[in-house]
């Protein structure tokens, strides 16, 4: 009895976190998991920012010349490096989400063990992505890759569904968890696929022809809806955590929902009407 796992894992985390200026204060006074929770939020915000930029850029596919002109600006080693660095918040957010779900729904309390795996798998993913970007001209069938990713994602989502659906009455919260399970494989998979051949991802004709495949349209539709739901739930959650004035909170949530509807429209137009 009295086994407080957060206190028992303190030394392992603190060695790492104490080395980071600005972070060590929170690690000492709130604990290492508190810092990890903030890192999860910040990585989420970075991903939301990129998502909006990504949707806006892809919406230029309606005029392929404009899209390729924009891509020629982004087609520099600097932007390639930024894209590579984006893998860090992406894989951290995904794997830390797994850690949270293992803690909350599967009674996994060994934080050291989970963080060890988070670090190892994250590093492996980033290494793999870097390798693909460096090799530069790998190819794989979009349909085969998409089907594999979708099958794995649906299995993960289904597994979590049967675990959590009857646990609480908060449907929105459960959907947030389920979209997380779906995106866990879809998004890192999508990023890997797009970097198998970095140059091809900047050619309008190739993207448009891929988006003409009905299967890929279904996959992208599920992805766009899941990612927007997950992002907006996360943002609403932050608002609900910190904005105490009811009217302001309500206004912010309404504004956010309108903003999301606009980006959902962009996403749907992109999925079904570009090709």
């Amino acid at each position: 009895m009295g086994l407080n796992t957060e206190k028992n894992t303190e030394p392992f985390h603190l060695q790492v976190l104490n080395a980071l200026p600005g972070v060590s204060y929170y690690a000492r006074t709130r604990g290492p998991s508190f810092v990890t929770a903030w890192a999860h939020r910040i990585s989420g915000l970075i991903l939301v920012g990129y998502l909006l930029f990504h949707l806006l850029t892809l919406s230029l596919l309606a005029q392929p010349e404009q899209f390729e002109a924009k891509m020629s600006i982004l087609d520099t080693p600097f932007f390639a490096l930024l894209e590579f660095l984006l893998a860090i918040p992406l894989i951290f957010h995904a794997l830390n989400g797994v850690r949270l779900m293992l803690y909350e729904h599967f009674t996994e309390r060994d934080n050291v063990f989970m963080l060890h795996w988070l670090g190892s798998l994250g590093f492996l993913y980033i290494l793999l992505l870097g390798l693909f970007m460096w090799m530069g001209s790998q190819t794989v069938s979009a349909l085969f890759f998409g089907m594999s990713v979708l099958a794995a994602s649906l299995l993960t989502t289904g597994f979590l569904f049967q675990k959590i659906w009857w646990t609480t009455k908060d449907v929105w919260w459960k959907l947030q968890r389920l979209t997380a399970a779906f995106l866990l494989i879809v998004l890192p998979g999508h990023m890997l696929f797009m970097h198998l051949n970095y140059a091809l991802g900047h050619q309008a004709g190739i993207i448009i022809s891929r988006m003409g495949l009905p299967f890929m349209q279904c996959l992208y539709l599920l992805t766009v809806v899941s990612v927007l739901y997950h992002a907006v739930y996360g943002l609403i959650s932050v608002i609900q955590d910190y904005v105490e004035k009811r009217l302001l909170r309500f206004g912010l949530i309404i504004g956010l929902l309108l903003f999301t509807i606009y980006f959902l429209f962009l996403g749907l137009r992109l999925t079904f009407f570009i090709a």
Partner: protein
Amino acid sequence: MNTRQTLVLKIHRYSPENNQAWVQDYQLKVSGMLRFTDVLRKINQEQDPGLAWTSSCEHAQCGSCSAIVNGKPLLLCELLVKKAVERFKTTTFVLEPLTVAPVLRDLIVDLAQAYERVHQAKPFIIDPAGPPAEGDELRIQPQMMDHYVEATRCINCFCCAQACISRPGNFLGPNAMMANIVRMLDPKEQAKDERLDILSAGNGLARCHTARACSFVCPKEIDVAHFLALGKQGKMS
């Protein structure tokens, strides 16, 4: 060894009469074996009788002396000077009142307002089961009680609520949630559905993000986050 320490205490003060807040420095030489409540008493006796703070049992059982010391919420009656110097690696300490409720004066907060949130979580058996037909009393096996007895040590000191990643105005708080969950786990409780409604509300478990600061700061060393996770898992029997 009873070493003496020269401490500098920077105490956040507040006067409700003129609605003024300021930080006041106190310097004093004390034994390393004194607790921070003793240090504050010494300030009252020797330097400033007007410095306001609260304590009651001074045995870490009532939770009335909670405050923030160098950023960490804790019980002042539990904190030895010697340990504090070792832990924070300094002899200068910033003392602040909790922010889970409005400050009444200096280090005293209106705990009645903070308790309101605990009351919303109904920290009592709502609908107790009667005795079984074949016996005189409802017996709880020790193995079953082991699942939740740790949570019954909570003293509602609000250190967990202070450390939580969510603001107390929008979240009933880790201690309040645990008060609900511990009664969900209690076989005497029959109103499980009503309890689930409290957990599923907007100011309930949706505001918990498993940052686990509650477990990290808990003076009673309760793994609060573990019980909140049980609530999310729906493990209620």
